[in-house]
């Protein structure tokens, strides 16, 4: 059973989203997603300052098996990326919700987060797969 914390929101493409106190939004991939991908060996991070719309493919996570696109959960501007992943991409496998975060954005509209799934909806969606 994969880990689904209740303090973040989810997309059907298996990203998690967390609103921080400073108004930025942290994004990563879920435990379910990292488990399905297997050993992660490379992350192509998005460019800082790029302005991306909801649903846009913004970076790529590659496991030994396959390359997988990561999509913007909500629209915004990229303000930070997790440089630890450059040399330790496997951090996503070991700590997908904490040290394995991928990038931060300044959201176009903070309220967009409310449209995303909560933990129980996401759990139901994973069960359906």
């Amino acid at each position, binding site marked *: 059973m994969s880990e689904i914390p209740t303090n973040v929101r989810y997309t059907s493409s298996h990203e998690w989203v967390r609103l921080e106190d400073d108004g930025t939004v942290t994004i990563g991939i879920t435990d379910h997603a990292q488990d399905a991908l*297997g*050993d992660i*060996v*490379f992350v*192509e991070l998005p460019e800082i300052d790029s302005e991306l719309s909801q649903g846009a493919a913004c970076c*790529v996570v*590659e496991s*030994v*098996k396959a*390359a997988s696109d990561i999509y913007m959960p909500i629209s915004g501007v990229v303000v930070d990326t997790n440089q630890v992943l*450059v040399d330790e991409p496997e951090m996503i496998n070991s700590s997908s919700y904490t040290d394995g975060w991928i990038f931060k954005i300044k959201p176009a509209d903070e309220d967009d987060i409310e449209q995303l799934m909560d933990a129980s909806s996401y759990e139901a969606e994973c069960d359906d797969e």
Partner: protein
Amino acid sequence: MSQKTCLFKNHQNHGGKIVDFAGWEMPINYGSQVEEHHQVRTDAGMFDVSHMTVVDLEGDKVIAFLQYLLANDVAKLKTEGKALYSAMLNEQGGVIDDLIVYYMNDQWFRMVVNAGTRDKDLAWINKQSGAFDVSVTERPELAMIAVQGPNAREKALSALPLDVSQASAALKRFVGTASGDWFVARTGYTGEDGFEIMLPESETPAFWEALVEAGVKPIGLGARDTLRLEAGMNLYGTDMDESTSPLISNLGWTIAWEPEGRNFIGRDKIAAEKAAGVKQKLVGLVLEGKGVLRGHMKVVCEAGEGEITSGTFSPSLKQAIAIARVPVAIGETCDVEVRGKLLKARVVKPVFFREGKPCL
């Protein structure tokens, strides 16, 4: 219809993640493909390869038949149990399959062919065998386990039944030995030492657990692919197929041109290709920077364009490697198109890592 090997329950009990492979439900990994890869490079691991097809060929003219059927020459096999790797070509010189053939005795050879090509291989072998009065018998009741790694032989010998173990202890590389219905060969597909063991299905699940007890860990087909790629071994259907000749598939070394009078299927076509000058070859690529190389990515060099046939992230070298079909005049470096960007790669011989050491 998906099929299961006799080890399916063992895979489930050991946490195997099951996927479809050529119509078989096989374990892709048992948790971490990368850990399993290192397990084989540093200690001992085992693969269920029971989905592969074992075919026994018997008859007075079996040697003459195989000299006609295969691009390599079974006349090279002088001692019982000796193995030979060969391509089986069609009349156009394309590769129908790659296989290992074992010389059991003058009237009996055993072939192991790929699971994904079973139907067409058997049809082809049967069609060609008519004139030679050779019997072609599939052996689906035999399972096969590959035990691979620097400690594989020692651990496997401790788990094998005593008589089989004694018969297998002194095996030289690329030689096998039969003990009753068991057949143990010192062959493999990882670039590490080890055995491939054929045995009756009824005894296989218990033997698998005996190997676990002896410290051999189950390894999925995912790691099998990264291990064979590091070892520079072709994968049928990916690195070569019926549309590619062995000469552009790094299989030239497996073609026995001597004796000149040996007429094997496809010989005239590949001889003509050789005489006209071979245009492409398979090389190894090592990505200079970060990223992962994948099959079908475009390769760009001064001599023209090529394509990656197999690519992955090498767990042993910790960088991306690939096998690519490129123009023969390729230089020491090239570019690979990765998601619209050109990334620099080094061109090397397609052998990256064997016997626990880098080959670069």
